[in-house]
């Protein structure tokens, strides 16, 4: 028996997300009185793989094959399923991110394993195996019982803290069995923005809405983001008007994010916008309209002119940081 967790690497390094997954998997393993096996696919150095040992993992299986350098859903599902069988995994854990969403359901069918996607906490019980998740874009919570012998869970972003549990970890290099038919898709071109913090990774996000008046008012938003080491975002009308690029749009029809801190400057707080940011740990709203719906979702609010409050906030944070 084991809990198998798939940890993704980005250019050979694990991100905070991977350590959250390991911590979560360790929690489940404790509930089931078993151990955690982590699976990494890609070219990851042994030193990096060993980091998993800090989070209670007893074994890391590393699969490194050039054919798997790009995400090919069928092939990844095949490899992960093979390892799950080999390690007699009773639970397989993924992140509920782009990769998890693409691969975990295929593993579910391969292993005939019931799946809960977007879990928000450790199982509430193991017999029956019940996990809670948000539904109706956070308007309700469902307790889902998984009836199959093998269970698959994808963990919602930023819902489980990182917990260190140092353990002796062994690294196993594995050459999986792969079939050509599993490689029917190929990546012909990649187009990625580099250098800036990814919006979906950022712990702090500074966002602006139509209340900012115009694109020329954005430098303070960018300055605050830079000051706090965060990313910039915007509401849908701002992206539609072309004031900001589309990839900054957060909301139900844009990106869904879950940072530790979300600043909403000049954003009224329409339901569709809140759908994209309501999982943020702390929301700060600044709006000149005291009845703006954003204040119902925010933790801290200021009724005022964003173009006056924002520079003041920047000044005071700089002072607090001794700048």
């Amino acid at each position: 028996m084991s809990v198998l967790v798939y940890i993704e690497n980005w250019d050979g390094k694990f991100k905070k997300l991977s350590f959250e997954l390991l911590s979560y998997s360790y929690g489940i393993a404790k509930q089931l009185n078993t151990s955690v096996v982590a699976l990494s696919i890609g070219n990851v150095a042994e030193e990096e793989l060993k980091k998993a040992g800090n989070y209670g993992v007893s074994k890391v299986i590393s699969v490194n094959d050039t054919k798997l350098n790009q995400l090919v859903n069928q092939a990844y599902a095949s490899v992960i399923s093979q390892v799950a069988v080999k390690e007699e995994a009773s639970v397989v854990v993924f992140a509920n991110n782009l990769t998890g969403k693409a691969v975990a359901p295929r593993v579910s069918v391969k292993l005939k394993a019931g799946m809960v996607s977007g879990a928000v906490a450790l199982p509430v019980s193991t017999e029956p195996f019940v996990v809670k998740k948000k539904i109706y874009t956070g308007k309700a919570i469902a307790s889902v019982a998984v009836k199959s012998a093998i269970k698959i869970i994808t963990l919602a972003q930023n819902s489980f803290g990182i917990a260190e549990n140092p353990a002796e970890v062994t690294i196993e290099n594995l050459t999986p069995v792969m079939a050509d038919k599993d490689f029917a898709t190929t990546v012909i071109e990649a187009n990625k923005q580099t250098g800036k913090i990814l919006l979906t990774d950022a712990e702090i996000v500074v966002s602006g809405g139509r209340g900012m008046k115009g694109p020329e008012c954005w430098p303070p938003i960018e300055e605050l983001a830079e000051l706090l080491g965060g990313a910039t975002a915007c509401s849908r009308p701002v992206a539609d008007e072309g004031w900001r690029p589309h990839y900054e749009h957060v909301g139900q029809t844009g990106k869904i994010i879950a940072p530790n801190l979300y600043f909403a400057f000049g954003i009224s707080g329409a339901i569709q916008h809140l759908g994209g940011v309501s999982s943020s740990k702390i929301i700060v709203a600044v709006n000149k309209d005291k009845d703006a719906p954003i204040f119902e979702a925010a933790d801290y609010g200021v009724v005022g002119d964003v173009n006056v409050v924002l520079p003041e906030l920047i000044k005071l944070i700089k002072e607090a940081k001794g700048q």
Partner: protein
Amino acid sequence: MKILVCLSNVPDTTTKIRLTPDNQSIDVTGVQWIINPWDELALSRAIELKEKNPAVIEKITVITVGNKETEPTIRKALAMGADDAVRINAEPRDAYFVAGQLAEVIKNQPYEIILCGIESSDHNGCTVGAMLSEFLEVPSVSSVSFLDVENGNVSLNREVDGGYEKIQTSLPFVAIVQKGIALEPKIAAMRGIMAARTKPLQVVEPANIEALTEVTAYELPAAKASCKMIGADNIAQLVDLLRNEAKVI
């Protein structure tokens, strides 16, 4: 080429969610039902592709797992521009059940492109499309933000961290699509609504497939503590709260 679009019947997204007294179900009294928004975008793109390439795209079929109450939603899809529909007569018990049912019907049919919205606005599962592709043993591409058919060639982009990748795939395949796939949903015009009444809607009985998960209870989220308001002339207090109370900066 034939395109198949998988649809889910969901409550209108502005619905206030209420539970039945025993917390065992969502109270659906008075709920307005719609095509799941992501599936609607998928269908809109399929229709755009057919309008662009009438010689290449022969027909668009929509399919759903649902009981008779879902037929008005299916007719909406036909009114938008789908050519025919299949309804698998069963409650959608869980994603594995739904994907398995869809696969039983689809497996012997020649669809080159199968479209699924990435997520449904009710369960937010993001699972049926990829599960379906595994049941059918065909390739899947997820988070597809762009799909085009030109001279019989399929080109598509999928979102990745920080950008997108252009993908080439063999056919048939499942595209699990998200925002960007169509700019706006197609509106059903009066003529479409009239035509929808007579377009074929085939009902099939479900296959013997089990659900692997079950919802045992529902709850509403804990009410959020009300917003702490800070005066616009007292931003120093906000900074203090963020540092020392919330501890986020």
